[in-house]
């Protein structure tokens, strides 16, 4: 049966309207749940990076509770000074990707601090960078000496499933634990991701980890983004290092 042009036109209009309506109502109804998922996922990954995540099965309420009691967050500027945010904006709302588009002196960098009583037991910063296909998002947690890596996570990436996407796996992330980000001359260094296991007698073994086979580009991306993001916090990290050294000296004198 041949249909007239008018019929064709009306038909496709109706189909489009129904489909568009269906999709927009689904997006509207599911939006809140999806946003909560994203927010909890972000907090969960901060907890994971600083080793507070007891297990993967923690409920959303438990994650939010643990985050609120243990994590303190603030933003620092390019000079490493802590800056007050305007009212109504929380540190979690600061989008590191958007900050990158601002002029350098206006950028804000979020820091998540793990408190243990009055002491700080870890510093955590967001890490973002390109892999092979996608932008990878994660967190890097440092020990209080801001030299040794305490943990690293990637919570959002669209690398090749099974290959590059292994950056999200615990076995890959655990390789970074204990590696150091400052070299002997007090410069920030990239953690080198090798093709094979680092040789145990290599002088640089504290700055090296084994990569993922079949995912060289993704590994290179991780290597680059770690250094790039650490350099953003360089002034802030240097300040902490100076303070730690001073504290240690005082304790020594006492």
């Amino acid at each position: 049966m041949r249909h007239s042009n008018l019929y064709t036109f009306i038909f496709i209009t109706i189909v489009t309207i129904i489909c568009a309506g269906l999709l927009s109502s689904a997006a509207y109804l599911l939006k809140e749940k999806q946003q909560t998922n994203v927010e909890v996922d972000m907090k969960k990954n901060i907890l994971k990076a600083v080793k507070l995540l007891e297990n993967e099965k923690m409920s959303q309420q438990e994650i939010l509770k643990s985050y609120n009691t243990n994590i303190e967050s603030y933003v620092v500027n390019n000079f490493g000074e802590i800056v007050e945010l305007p009212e109504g904006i929380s540190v979690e709302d600061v989008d590191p990707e958007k900050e990158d588009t601002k002029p350098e002196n206006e950028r804000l960098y979020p820091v998540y601090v793990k408190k243990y009583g009055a002491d700080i037991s870890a510093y955590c910063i967001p890490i973002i960078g390109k892999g092979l296909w996608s932008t990878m998002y994660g967190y890097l947690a440092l020990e209080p000496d801001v030299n040794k890596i305490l943990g690293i996570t990637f919570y959002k990436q669209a690398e090749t499933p099974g290959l590059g996407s292994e950056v999200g796996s615990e076995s890959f992330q655990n390789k970074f634990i204990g590696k150091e980000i400052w070299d002997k001359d007090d410069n920030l260094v990239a953690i080198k991701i090798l093709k094979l296991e680092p040789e145990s007698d290599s002088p640089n073994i504290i700055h090296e980890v084994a990569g993922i086979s079949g995912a060289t580009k993704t590994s290179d991306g991780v290597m680059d983004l770690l250094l790039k993001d650490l350099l953003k916090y360089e002034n802030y990290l240097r300040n902490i290092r100076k303070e730690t050294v001073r504290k240690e000296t005082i304790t020594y004198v006492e």
Partner: protein
Amino acid sequence: MSNKKTLFEPIIHNNPVTIQVLGICSALAVTTQLKPSLVMGIAVTVIITMSNLIVSLIRSFIPKKIRIIVEMTIIATMVILVDQILRAYLFDVSKQLSVFVGLIITNCIVLGRLEGFALINKPLPSILDGFGNGIGYSLILVAVGAGREILGAGTLMGYSVIPQSLYNAGYENNGLMVLAPGAFILLGLIVWFQRAVTGHYEEE
């Protein structure tokens, strides 16, 4: 064709992947591990079944000249809907499948079933045909995914399955299996095995 035949034929005798050789791209891309293969299989099955049903319901109203556009609109709607629901209720899985859920839109099996079956058949057989084809596709994906994960990484669903003693004796994971050629080899072996058993061969 009986309903039973409609449902079961695409699972073995007319399998969309091994006999019709459709949907190969995703069968290669997501099958490095069992879990994404499984979820991909389920997602595709749901999407073919639903789109088959919808197209079959409106089949007599679709103008011939724009039928492909209508079919694509319906497939795209279903795919985005499934993606949204995964994001809301199965957040971790949706993160793992990332772009591949969206790419179901371009899976030739879905459009193939709409064109080849749902446009000329009643709703019930269309549902069965979509479901059967989805299961046929999933079976191959799961087989390839399981094979590649065991041979390539020594694990299944993330748990190690190859005993440590074997590694101590000099066994090594086959890195080729993690890469695309590994999928081609396994898929080729499955096609060969299946045709050897069923006696199916291409007409000249």
